[in-house]
């Protein structure tokens, strides 16, 4: 079968004539086809929100976690291949724990994100390894304040005010650009994030859940799931906003 990268896409150690490494691009596809993850860095914290498609009625509610704690002050949300994302998250946990042991203080967000980026990048260098098919949105609140980072399968790590990965990332990013993030409190940002997820998702009638976490002043600078009442309120507002726009149509 011939395809886009025929001949140049069999190994991550082969460039294509136009300077691409197709294996890395294909890994990115795994992320692009995953359900959407949104990250917002607001006035006093960072919010991560994931849409989780519920694949089976037999799954216990709340299972298939997409957000992991890395340290008290850092959390990551994963998009793409879940086991790959778990490996990278575990590495982040290792880095944070060893930094704390050696230097006595919590790992700064920008140091952690670079270490995770280097780690993911390494898997793009060797023929015997495949690139990770996962992207991580990293929410950190350190002594320099709150920060949001994204690491993609190529190992690029960048700091963002707001970003999204996954299926509806383009629509989500368009919505994020409308927000005045510097003026939002974390509470308000949670509601906005959930509204965005509801708005941009595919209305295919399939059941879905949300994983939403924050690290902010209100949470005592600790990364944790948002309180149930806040999540319920956010979903209520998101559904109401959808109905309003439905009526407008």
């Amino acid at each position, binding site marked *: 079968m011939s395809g886009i990268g025929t001949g140049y896409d069999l190994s991550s150690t082969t460039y294509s004539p136009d300077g691409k490494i197709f294996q890395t691009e294909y890994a990115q596809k795994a992320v692009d086809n995953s359900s959407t993850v949104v990250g917002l860095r607001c006035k006093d914290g960072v919010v991560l929100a994931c849409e989780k498609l519920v694949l089976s009625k037999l799954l216990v509610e709340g299972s298939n976690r997409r957000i992991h704690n890395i340290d008290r002050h850092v959390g990551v949300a994963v998009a793409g291949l879940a086991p790959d994302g778990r490996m990278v998250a575990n590495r982040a946990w290792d880095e944070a724990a060893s930094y704390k*042991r*050696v*230097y*006595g*203080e919590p790992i*700064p967000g*920008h140091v952690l994100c*670079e270490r995770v980026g280097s780690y993911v990048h390494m898997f793009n260098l060797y023929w015997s390894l495949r690139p990770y098919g996962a992207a991580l949105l990293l929410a950190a609140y350190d*002594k320099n304040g709150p920060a949001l980072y994204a690491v993609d399968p190529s190992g690029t790590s960048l700091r963002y005010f707001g970003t999204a990965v996954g299926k509806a990332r383009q629509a989500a990013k368009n919505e994020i650009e409308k927000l005045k993030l510097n003026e939002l409190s974390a509470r308000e940002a949670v509601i906005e994030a959930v509204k965005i997820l509801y708005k941009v998702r595919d209305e295919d009638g399939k059941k879905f859940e949300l994983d939403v976490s924050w690290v902010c002043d209100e949470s005592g600078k600790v990364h944790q799931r948002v309180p149930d009442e806040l999540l319920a309120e956010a979903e209520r507002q998101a559904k109401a906003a959808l109905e309003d726009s439905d009526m407008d149509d």
Partner: protein
Amino acid sequence: MHSSRGASHAEAPPSTGTTIVACTYKGGVVLGADGRVSIGNYIMNRASNKIAPLAEYIFLCRSGSAPDTQVISDNVKHYLDQISAESGEEPSVEMAANLVKLINYNNKDHLVGAMLIAGWDRHGGGQVYGAPIGGTLVKEKWAIDGSGSTYIWGYCDNEYRDDMTREEAEKWVAEAIALAMTRDSSSGGSIRLITLDGTGAHHKYIRGDEVQQFVGDLPFPAAPPASLPLQGGAAGSMVVG
């Protein structure tokens, strides 16, 4: 001079025998140390520098085994250099203190180093940490160590105040070291002070003859009263051995 804490080492190398002092004040920290390095009764160096730089605003006061503390200082300086390069930021005092502690604790069977880490960083201001032998780490408002420190606990406890000015803190440190030098034969020579307040590392050197004296010489005897004979006679004079 073997500090009492190192006595369990049968073959411990001679220690510097030292007085080191560090204290926080309103706006920064002051570090101080004497200058004597002695091996037994021989003073090998009477004006040594026992305060080592670990970073631009972080210093280490060394007491205990001289070679051990020098190696610890070099290693911690190296690790701090590396992490600053990685993070692009100045290291914090807590990081330096933690590194000293890790080396002390993980090598406790081999090392005899009692150190004070003091410095200034953007987020925490002036800080002092004590890192005695064995690998403890304690953050304190002020700390003293070395053989001479045993003589000045009372002075330090009594005279320390929170939120001193820079002048008061420097006077407190210099006086504490001078008092220790008075009573500890292994401390003496000169006093070095370093003050860190975020504008720089301000060094002060107090020469041996400028150090505050507390126990002066007895006055030279005046001419003896006429009733006493000048020279020792046979029966009526005291023989002073």
